[in-house]
C-alpha cells in the first residue's frame, strides 16, 4: 500500500508494528544471547516534553501485594486489566480511534478498514466532522450509503457485544446539516442507541491548528460544489487546480459551551456527550466547564496531534503541547481523553499517568491500516497493549486507573542544564559554574515533585 506518508512522525516504526505486532516491542529474537543491550543510542529523540518523562517504578509495591492477595499467587504482567470506561463507553484497551476528518486520507476504504479493526478491538471510534456537508448523507431518493453510515455499519458488524461505541463529531457546518439529528433518528444507528454505544462529540477545535476550523484541499470542480457551505480560497494561485476549503472554527464562550452541552443532553438523552478542545491556554477552565455541564468526556488534542491539513506556521508554532495541557488540567474532575502523537505504549502510559482515561490513535492508526488494511491497526494496538501491561505491572499496578503522576519523572532540561550535557563533561569537573548555568539548574527540576 504505502499510499500515505507522515514525515515527522515515526512512520517506519508504526508500519513495522502494523506488520509484526507485539514482536516489535522487543529487540529481534535472533539477537538474543549475541548482543549486549543498554539504552539505545539510536533511540528517536523525544518528540516533546511528554516523551522526556521517564516511567519510574518504585521498589516497594503495596498495590502488587494487594493483587498477590487477590490472586493467591504472584501477579504477572498478563494480570493487568486494561479495560476502561471512556466517556461512558466500555473500551477493552485504554485506546480509541480518533477522528480522521474529511480529508482524503480519512474517508474511503482506509477509514472503513480502520472502523472494522477498532470494532474488533472493542475500542470506541470517533467519526470526524464535516463528513455530511462534504460527502452527503442518504436521502430518500439516494440509496447509496454515505461514508458516515458505511463506517457505522462496518463497526457494528464487527464489534463484540457490550464494548466500544461510535462517537460522531459535529462542527458548525455539520450543525447546518444537522448531523446528530440525522443520526439519532436513523434506524441504522438504533443498535448503538439501544446498547448505550452512541456518543456525540462537540468539536471546538483541533491540535493541528488551534483556533482555526477544518481545512482541506479540493479540486476546482469540488470547490465549486462546496462554495455555498464553505469558504473556498485560491491560496495556491489562480492557475493551480487546487483550492483551499475552510470551515469556521465556531465561536465559544464558557456560557455558549455550557448551553450547547445542555442542549445536546436534552435533545439526545440516549447519546453520550463528548467535547473536543484544541490545546488552548485556558484548557483547564474549558475542561472544568465541560465536566460541570455534564460532559461524559473531554478530549484534549495536543499541539502534536492532527491527521489534518494545516498551515506550516500552525503545525510548528501554535498551541500548547499535550504535556502542558495535562499539567494545567491537573487532577481531572471527569473523564479526560488525550490525543497527539500517540503510537507506542510509553507515551500512552505517560498520558494515562497524567490523568487521561484513554488516548486516541490518529495518524498511527491511519498508517497502520495503510500498511495492512486487514489487521494493521489490531497489531499496532496489540503492541501498545503489551507495552502497557509490562509498564503498568512494573509500576506495581494492575489497572489503568491506578496510574498517577508519581509514576513519572522529568529529567532536568538537557538544553539548559550543563551537568546533563555529555558533550561538556570537563565543565562539570572544573566547578566553573557560570551564573547562567546555575540559574538554569535552579529552574530545572520542573515536574519532578
Amino acid at each position, binding site marked *: 500500500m504505502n499510499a500515505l506518508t507522515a514525515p515527522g512522525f515515526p512512520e517506519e516504526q508504526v508500519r513495522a508494528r502494523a506488520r509484526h505486532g507485539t514482536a516489535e516491542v522487543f529487540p529481534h529474537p535472533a539477537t538474543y544471547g549475541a548482543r549486549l543491550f543498554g539504552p539505545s543510542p539510536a533511540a528517536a529523540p523525544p518528540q516533546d516534553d511528554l516523551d522526556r518523562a521517564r516511567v519510574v517504578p518504585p521498589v516497594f509495591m503495596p498495590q502488587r501485594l494487594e493483587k498477590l492477595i487477590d490472586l493467591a499467587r504472584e501477579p504477572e504482567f498478563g494480570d493487568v486489566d486494561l479495560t476502561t470506561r471512556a466517556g461512558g463507553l466500555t473500551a477493552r484497551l485504554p485506546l480509541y480511534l480518533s477522528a480522521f476528518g474529511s480529508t482524503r486520507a480519512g474517508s474511503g476504504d482506509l477509514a472503513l478498514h480502520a472502523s472494522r479493526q477498532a470494532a474488533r478491538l472493542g475500542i470506541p471510534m470517533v467519526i470526524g466532522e464535516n463528513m455530511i456537508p462534504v460527502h452527503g448523507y442518504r436521502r430518500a431518493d439516494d440509496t447509496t450509503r454515505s461514508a458516515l453510515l458505511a463506517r457505522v455499519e462496518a463497526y457494528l458488524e464487527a464489534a463484540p457485544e457490550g464494548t466500544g461505541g461510535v462517537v460522531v463529531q*459535529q462542527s458548525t457546518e455539520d450543525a447546518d446539516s444537522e448531523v446528530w439529528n*440525522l443520526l439519532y*433518528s436513523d*434506524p441504522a444507528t438504533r443498535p448503538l442507541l439501544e446498547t448505550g454505544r452512541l456518543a456525540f462529540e462537540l468539536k471546538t477545535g483541533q491540535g493541528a491548528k488551534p483556533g482555526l476550523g477544518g481545512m482541506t484541499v479540493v479540486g476546482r470542480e469540488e470547490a465549486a460544489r462546496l462554495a455555498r457551505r464553505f469558504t473556498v480560497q485560491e491560496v495556491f494561485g489562480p492557475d493551480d487546480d487546487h483550492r483551499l476549503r475552510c470551515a469556521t472554527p*465556531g465561536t465559544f464562550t464558557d456560557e455558549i459551551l455550557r448551553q450547547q452541552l445542555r*442542549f*445536546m443532553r436534552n435533545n439526545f*438523552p440516549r447519546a453520550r456527550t463528548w467535547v473536543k478542545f484544541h490545546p488552548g491556554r485556558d484548557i483547564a477552565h474549558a475542561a472544568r466547564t465541560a465536566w460541570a455541564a455534564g460532559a461524559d468526556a473531554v478530549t484534549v488534542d495536543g499541539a502534536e496531534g492532527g491527521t489534518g491539513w494545516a498551515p506550516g506556521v500552525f503545525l510548528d508554532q501554535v498551541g500548547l503541547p499535550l504535556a502542558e495541557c495535562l499539567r494545567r488540567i491537573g487532577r481531572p474532575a471527569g473523564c479526560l481523553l488525550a490525543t497527539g502523537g500517540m503510537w507506542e505504549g510509553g507515551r500512552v502510559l505517560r498520558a494515562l499517568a497524567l490523568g487521561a482515561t484513554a488516548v486516541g490513535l490518529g495518524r498511527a492508526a491511519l498508517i497502520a491500516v495503510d500498511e495492512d488494511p486487514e489487521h494493521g491497526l489490531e497489531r499496532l494496538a496489540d503492541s501498545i497493549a503489551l507495552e502497557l501491561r509490562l509498564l503498568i505491572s512494573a509500576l506495581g499496578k494492575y489497572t489503568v486507573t491506578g496510574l498517577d503522576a508519581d509514576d513519572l519523572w522529568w529529567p532536568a532540561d538537557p538544553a539548559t542544564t550543563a551537568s546533563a550535557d555529555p558533550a561538556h563533561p570537563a565543565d562539570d569537573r572544573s566547578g566553573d559554574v557560570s551564573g547562567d548555568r546555575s540559574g538554569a539548574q535552579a529552574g530545572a527540576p520542573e515536574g519532578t515533585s
Partner: protein
Amino acid sequence: MDRTLRAGAPGTPPPLGEHLRSSRLRAAMLVQQEALQAARDFLRGEGFTELLPPLVGPVTDPGGRGAKALDVDYYGHPYKLMTSAILYKQASLRGFPKLFYIAPNVRVEPEETATTGRHLVEFHQIDVEIADATREDAQEIAAGLLTRVAEHVWTAVPGLLSELGRREEDFADIRGGKYDVCTHEEAVRRLLAAGHPQNPDGEIDWTGERLLSLESDRAFFVNDYPKGSRGFYDREDPDNPGVLRNFDLIAPHGYGELVSGSEREADYATIVTRMRESGENPAKYAWYLQEARDGIPASAGFGMGLQRLVRFLTGLDALWQVSAYPKLPGAVTP
C-alpha cells in the same frame, strides 16, 4: 416504564381507509371543527388577525428533543418544511401586532415517541403571537382560549363528548377559568420525590410530563424552563440568568402538554448569542437576523397543539385517533 403507563399506551392505526370510515374518527372531527370555530371566534374577539402560515423556508424552528425538519429542494436551495413558523410570527409583528395561524407543521420525531400517544409527524398548532406582551399576557390568552373552546364544545356537541365517555364535570375547572401554576424547578422536585429521574437542566421528559399530568386534577402552567431546554427565541429572564420567561400548559388526568409559549428574544445581539448557545450557525438565519437588526418588537406568544387539544376534549387515547391522516413517528404510512 411502569405498568400503569404502559396500560395507557395506544395501539397503531388501522389501514387508512378503515380509519377514515370509523365512527370514532367522525366524532373526533366533529369535535375538532367546533374547537376550531371557537378558537377563531375567541381570538378574533380579542382583536387578533388570522394569517395563513408559510409552508417552506430557508430555515425553520430548530426545535429540540431530537425532532428534525424535512428537507425540500427549492430551486436548488436546501429549504425546510416548517416545524413551526415562530420566526415568521415574530417577523410579522410590525404589520400585525396580534396575529394567529392555524398552522400545519411537520416534525420528524424520534421513533421512541411513537408510543407516547402524544406525537404525530404531521400536526397543527393554533399559533399565537402578541407584540409588546409579557408571559402573563400570553398565558391569559392561552387560558382564555382553552376555556372558550371547552365551553363551546360542551354547548355545541355535548352528546358526542358523552358518547366518547367524557364527563362534563371534568371540565368544570377549565370552563370556570381555574388553572394552577408551578415552576419547572418545582415540577422537577415533585418528579424526583416521586422517584422519577428528571434532569434538572432539561425539558421534562415524556414519562415525567405524563406523571405530572396524571397526578393533577386541574390544568396547570409550568413556568421558567432552564436555558438549554428550549429554542434560542425563548427570552432569558434578565433577573434570573439561565432561566427562560416561558411556559407550558399541561392538561390534567394524563393528557399532558397542550401549549408551549414564551416571551421572545427581540434583541439582535442576544439572538445571535443564543443561537450559538443552541449550536446553531447564525449565517443560515440571515433573513431573520436582518429583521432582528431592523427591529423586531418585543413579544410573547404560544402554540396550542390542535390534535392534542382535540384528544383532550374527546378523551381518546392517542393522537392518531384524532387525526384524519395520521403519521406516527417511524411508521411509513400514506
